[in-house]
């Protein structure tokens, strides 16, 4: 089932009056339950593409559909609500709120949705226990390792049961063991709960785990293939 569809999407930045084409006429689709890695060199436009898919950024031209709803024409307020209710974000530098505990960090997005305290707490604990942080529920991020912080970030991204999760280089700051653990955990969530993951990465280990790989270069999709059946997607 098609979850995300980009049609002829381009993004041009104009820093200091010089036009930079970050995404160049990209058309691409993502289906429910995909585990997709977008790979490419720094500056290839991966993050911009993810931001456009996630509704953080808007394209200069083209159309973005999520569940057949065009999101690039939503008002800023509607787009914020859309992100809150439909997308989970995982950032390279975790970006947890340092003053809140692991549980509170996971609860936060559900609070934004106006969910009741008991429901929030139960869901946060359930997720943190599921990702192996049952002993760290009341620890603040500063007391957690990088890998543990990124796990909390994954739990936060999944807390509100989003339609898909966008992860921008989620393993960039992790050591090998943490990367391995995190990838395994995301794979399990993908397989057991059918969560759609789309992440950008430089990390070959991530690419190795991905079911689908999109190679991005100079703002364009250079290659797009699914590993299991070696099926090439139409570019």
């Amino acid at each position, binding site marked *: 089932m098609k979850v995300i569809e980009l049609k002829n999407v381009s993004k041009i930045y104009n820093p200091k009056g010089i036009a930079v084409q970050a995404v160049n006429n990209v058309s691409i689709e993502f289906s429910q339950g995909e585990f997709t890695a977008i790979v490419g060199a720094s500056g290839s436009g991966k*993050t*911009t593409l993810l*931001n456009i898919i*996630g509704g*953080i*950024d808007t394209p200069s031209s083209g159309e973005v559909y999520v569940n057949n709803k065009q999101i690039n024409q939503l008002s*800023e*307020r509607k787009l*914020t*609500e859309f*992100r*809150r*209710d439909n997308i989970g*974000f995982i*950032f390279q*530098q975790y*970006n947890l*709120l*340092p*003053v*809140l505990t692991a549980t*509170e960090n996971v*609860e*936060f*997005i559900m*609070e*934004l*949705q106006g969910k009741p305290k008991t429901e929030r707490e139960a869901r946060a604990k359930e997720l943190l226990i599921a990702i192996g942080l049952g002993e760290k529920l009341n620890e603040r991020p500063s007391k957690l390792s990088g890998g543990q912080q990124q796990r909390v970030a994954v739990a*936060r991204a999944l807390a509100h049961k989003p339609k898909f999760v966008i992860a*921008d280089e989620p393993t960039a700051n992790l050591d090998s063991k943490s990367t391995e653990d995190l990838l395994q955990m995301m794979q399990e969530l993908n397989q057991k709960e059918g969560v759609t993951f789309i992440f950008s990465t430089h990390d070959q280990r991530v690419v190795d785990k991905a079911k689908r790989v999109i190679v991005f270069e100079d703002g364009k999709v250079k290659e797009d293939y699914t590993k299991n059946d070696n099926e090439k997607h139409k570019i």
Partner: protein
Amino acid sequence: MTNKLAWKNIWRNKTRSFVFISAAFLGFAIALFTLNTMKSISQQRLDDAINIQTSYIQIHKKGFIEDKEITFTIPDADNVISKVKSINGVESISKHISSNAVMASPENNIVCEIKGVVPEQENKISVLKDFIIEGEQLNDLQKTPILVSKKTADKLKLKLKSKVVVTLKSANGEITGGTFRVVGIFATPSTPFDEGTAIARYNDLELLSGIKLPHELAIKIADPSKLKEVQSKIQSVLNNEYEVNDWMYLLPELFAFDSFINMIGVLFTVIIILGLGFSLMNTMNMIVQERTKELGMLRAIGQKKWSVFSMLLKEAGLMMSIGASGGILLGVLFVYMSSKHGISISEGLGFLGIRPTIYPKLNPELLGMISIMAIALTLLISAIPARRALKIKPQEALRD
């Protein structure tokens, strides 16, 4: 949780928050204490002047205030008194004969204003009796009694029971004089009043000068806040032959001083508030600057602009609440302690009518004004950096 988050955010940089909270604490304590003390000085001065010198309203024959002419008496005074008494809000009336006079003792002489009063009436509008430091107040049993100030007594070398000769212009324009006996010596907070005033009985001055009618009617009103209303009612029952003036007209320098004190108080408070405002602005700017990435993340995951804005306002509000409420409590405590023990200030300010010891009172209006200022300052000042936070673009903030 945004409340909890705002609260916890305050303590992320304890030193910075402590500095701002301390500034607000001290600023509000000092502002509240200073404003109340200044207001109390001004109010005490006003109360003294009104209760000793003029009362709230005075009625004169038109032209008397300018010329002090002894023949400018109030026509049909009994009828005027009767009409004024019936006005709602008028508490009591005292009639005065007022004349410039020369008061002489064997040692010296001075020029002063002598007032003839009916003791029973005067005691209802004046608190001069409370400032008699030797002897007693006027009564009907004494023989040609007079009250003089301590300053006059010292200058003329008078003691209780001393005789003093008062010379003034009579009703027929001739100079007349009589002997009075000192029955009381007073010392009020106002040096000019003490140096220039002596008080005798109405009947004695009437007899001495041949003046049959009073020069002024001093009126005490029940509710000082209705001064203008009562003044207007009095004026409406009298014709144009009479002048009805309030204390602000009769004591212009006092009114100007009160306005000046209020202005200084407001200026002082504005300076403190501006200082606090800059401090708050600086603190909030640093908060937004430091947390740009975090605020971008919050916007990215779905926190609405208004929610980010209100979270920052809450942080500013909490810091201000802690500092201001503590400062206001300390200020109230200072005022309370000072109202019990008094604050000694220079004796030399008597020429301004200021008492040597001030007992500040807590003015609820000032307390309200300070509290409103704290709220308004927080909302206005912190809204500027909070608004800046709304312009943060998540995609840019997260990239940096």
